């Protein structure tokens, strides 16, 4: 029982980080209908910025916001200079999604090789700012440490902020409108192109947060070829798809589901089946609901 609760706690922490990454992917999908694999590279690049700031100033509390700003700037840059001109010349059906996906894969490769060029074999270090020793409950150490609490708090705050932005501000209304009906939004005076860039920027900030939390929760150091980041990208994407790729709440549900189930499998079944389990969870969800847990029913036709 004790072990099971610990497994759950580990799963919830990992899952909430996947949720943030999933949100980064969902935001880009909603604003431009692009599956953004460069999100992994952006998270990596902004985590390196965070590590550099941490080295200079020694404070995690300065590093995290600056990394988020860096993520937002990188992400907006990519949208403005690469995706916007690319989407202006859309191809036929099938390529419509495939070409942008492959273009973001190309961007991922370029970001990684630039980071490789700058850092080479050196790694950036992002140690946990708070103690990662578990709290002691009735003489036993549980898998909930001040650091884990901080992660959960940061994820929770980001989600509340995002919900407020989307539901209570004019910006949020414009964001929702231009993803729902770009033409009509344009007619009612929303600058859809600008709003899309803003959507990408928010996504970049969310991805940067996910990247930094993933590093501090994991090994504490980042390298350009970091396995943790491939993991973050793949599980974030899978979580987004499970949640229906359109919805922020879906992304959170998807991320937490994935995190908890994978943690249980890691604990009780075996580490080598974790990736296959992610595939099974995804395909079972999609067979029952082809458009994700919170996706539109029936799907659009014609």
């Amino acid at each position: 029982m004790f072990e099971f609760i610990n497994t759950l706690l580990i799963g919830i922490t990992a899952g909430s980080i996947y949720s943030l990454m999933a949100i980064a992917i969902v935001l880009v999908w909603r604003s431009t209908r692009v599956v953004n694999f460069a999100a992994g590279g952006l998270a990596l690049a902004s985590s390196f910025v965070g590590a550099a700031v941490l080295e200079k100033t020694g404070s995690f509390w300065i590093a995290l916001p600056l990394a988020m700003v860096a993520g937002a700037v990188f992400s907006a840059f990519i949208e403005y200079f690469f995706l916007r001109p690319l989407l202006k010349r859309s191809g036929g059906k099938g390529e419509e999604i495939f070409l942008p996906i492959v273009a973001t894969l190309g961007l991922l490769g370029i970001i990684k090789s630039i980071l490789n060029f700058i850092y080479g074999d050196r790694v950036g270090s992002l140690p946990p700012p708070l103690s990662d020793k578990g709290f002691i409950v009735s003489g036993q150490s549980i898998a909930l440490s001040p650091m884990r609490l901080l992660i959960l708090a940061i994820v929770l705050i980001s989600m509340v902020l995002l919900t407020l932005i989307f539901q209570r501000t004019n910006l949020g209304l414009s964001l929702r409108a231009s993803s729902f009906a770009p033409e009509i939004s344009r007619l009612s005076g929303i600058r859809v192109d600008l709003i899309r860039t803003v959507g990408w920027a928010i996504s970049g900030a969310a991805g940067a947060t996910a990247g930094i939390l993933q590093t501090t929760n994991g090994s504490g150091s980042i390298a350009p070829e970091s396995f943790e980041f491939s993991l973050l990208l793949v599980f974030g994407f899978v979580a987004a798809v499970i949640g229906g790729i359109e919805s922020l709440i879906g992304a959170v549900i998807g991320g937490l589901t994935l995190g908890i189930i994978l943690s249980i499998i890691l604990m009780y079944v075996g580490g080598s089946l974790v990736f296959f389990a992610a595939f099974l969870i995804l395909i079972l969800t999609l067979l029952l609901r082809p458009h994700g847990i919170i996706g539109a029913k029936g799907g659009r036709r014609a």
Partner: protein
Amino acid sequence: MELSARKVVAVHKRQITNKHRFIGFALIGLLVYILSNIVDEWRSFQGATIAVYVVAIASVILLTGYSGQISLGHGALLAIGAYSAALAQIYFHAPIWICFAAAVLITALFGAILGAAAARLSGPYLAGTTLALAVGLPSIANQFSILGGEQGISFDAGWPPLSFGESFTQYKWFFWIASLAALISMWWVQNILRSRYGRTWRAVKTNEVAAEIAGINIARSKVLAFTVSAGIAGLAGALLAMTVNNVSPSAFPLVLSFSIATGAVLSGVNTLGGVMIGSVALVAIPEIASSVSDRWSGSENLATLLPEFIVSALLILTVFLAPKGPIEKLRSRHVH
């Protein structure tokens, strides 16, 4: 623009008959034969790798370019083909040709099951599913001892027949097998793409509703495309296992799936004819990059990152400048 491009294709179709195509294939075969006699072991290995990529990229082009379904997980299908071939050899002592046939059939069967699920999905959902498959499937091998774990299992295509002479080397033999397999499968693929099935796939891709009204069973058509594509990918996997003598999970990383998708875009996603371009690029770029970085600076770091940088940059350039692929680009320029 769109209309004139179509017209050009139509004109080309009228000029090129199956007889011309056969002569073309025979000429490529002859070229491979001559090349295999003048190049060394390393080049033969590269030649075999190019042939493997040709088969793998053709399977993606068939699925994405012609049937409109996205796959980011063809590496997993290659893995199934490779493991099927190796298991057929180890447990049934099957001759090498039977191993290849087993790879094709078993992967096609798997593709049919996967395709039945995939036919319900579209766009990002399908991309996500295939991506998760690419990450998840090869790692299963670590769980079951029959699949050899991290070390993998061996797949031995055998030495070349003695009748070819003493100097006939191992990699030349692989080069021959891979090229023959590539030529046969390409011949078959280009035929099926111009058959009733190929036309059906393109109809479904272009307009699902119109295709359904015209009496096409959309789900069946999509599943069939997935099955055929998986079978070809299985062959590519068995060929890949042959060139490296071994099948292990680490031979099928996510990067392999991405490379195949990259190769498909470099070749032009909806023209089978460009398949050589992407395959040669994937093999040649690391080689060129390493010679460039050798001459430029001795930095080992540069040598490791340059191939990825060049491939990524080429990829973005292709998506921007020739989204329909280099061949379509040339064709449209030819007319204007």
